[in-house]
């Protein structure tokens, strides 16, 4: 079985003189999940985006590996997915066109049957041909989960995973987290107790 791991060692991030987080260390492997917790503005999102390569860390090291072999940035990109309220999809494209595009640009291919079952799973059946611009914020959040699932990520990053979702949407998301925490590495930035409880490890960002 292929084992993936993600480790952060003494990670720190500053914007100019402003310290965002300092001395963050953790180690995760396939089947383990981490909750990043801390008050508003403490740097949870910055930490997630730093792990994803969106920001360079001011100090420390991030290593993604597969069977103890360090992964290249290109491989990391193909094996990671993010779901977050600030992650926007293309409003002028339909939901299906968005999913086909993000799959194609990640080097994958998807069949109509797979798409139909995915839309069914995230509760968007019958809305696949609607432009994303006509979706509510909750529907957009569901579609982001569909895009993430399509990538079959080995590293799944979730920032406020149930933001904008109703009770049905939350249940769908909790099922997805349950599924991925068994077969992938899941990192969840949240302040909600029921989301935090999915993770075996906690990383507190409040410095």
């Amino acid at each position, binding site marked *: 079985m292929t084992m993936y791991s993600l480790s952060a060692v003494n990670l720190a991030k500053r914007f100019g003189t402003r310290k965002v987080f300092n001395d963050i260390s953790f180690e995760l492997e396939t089947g383990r999940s981490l909750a990043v917790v801390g008050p508003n503005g403490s740097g949870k999102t910055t930490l997630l985006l730093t792990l994803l390569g*969106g920001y360079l860390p001011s100090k420390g090291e991030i290593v993604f590996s597969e069977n103890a072999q360090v992964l290249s940035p290109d491989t990391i*990109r193909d094996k990671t997915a993010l779901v977050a309220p600030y992650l926007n999809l293309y409003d*002028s494209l339909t939901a299906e066109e968005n999913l086909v595009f993000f799959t*194609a*640009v*990640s*080097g994958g*291919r998807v069949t109509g049957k797979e798409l139909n079952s995915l839309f069914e799973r995230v509760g968007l059946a019958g809305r696949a041909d609607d432009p994303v611009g006509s979706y509510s914020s909750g529907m957009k959040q569901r579609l982001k989960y569909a895009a993430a699932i399509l990538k079959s990520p080995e590293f799944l990053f979730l920032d406020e995973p149930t933001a904008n979702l109703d009770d049905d949407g939350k249940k769908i998301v909790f099922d997805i987290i349950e599924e991925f925490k068994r077969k992938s590495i899941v990192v969840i930035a949240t302040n909600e107790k029921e989301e935090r409880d999915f993770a075996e490890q906690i990383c507190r960002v409040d410095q």
Partner: protein
Amino acid sequence: MPNKSAGLTSRALAVFSKDLRVELRSKYAFNAILMFGITTLAVVSFTLGQTGLSERLLAALFWIIMFFAAMAGLAQVFIREEETGTVLALKLSADPTAVYIGKLLFNFSLMALISAVITPVFFIFTDAPVDNILLFVLVLILGVVGLCAATTIVAAIISKAGIKGALFAVLSFPILFVLLLLLVNASARVLEGATIGGIGTELQGLIAYAGVMIVASLMLFKFVWQE
């Protein structure tokens, strides 16, 4: 679930076809470029059209119109990603090289379409000589490739800035200056009746410019994109 086997070409084509689809629905860049081109052409033709301009002046006017038309719309390819907030999703999904090639192909298609509209109108309005039209089209194609190669990388650089429009023109001008001189020279000589052998030096220069710009952009884009 998806079978991951696609290479750089299909990833770049995915970016290109996505941009094309978004543009076909909004027509934002196309309309901006076309309106600029047609308006400028109309002004030029009504004020100068009957005065018997020299071939060199006609060539200069043509490339001034093409330059400002490009400035009016080609930056949209990256600015739109920033303004709609889709840039993060694209960065997390796509190979930077595929993004650059896809965006370059899109800008080239857009300018090719605009050129196909502006060029015949320019020849009709200004009564420019059409004896050497195939050679003029060759210069036009090389010019559009060079123009798109340079403006695509500049568009990526300025897309995060506050005053994008002004910065785009300011940064593009020094990079495009050499290209515009070559283009005006080559076009003027074609209008004067030169053969392909007569503009060999200019053609080599145009090919070299486009080649250097594309290679340099491919090398630089990763750093611009990931900043």
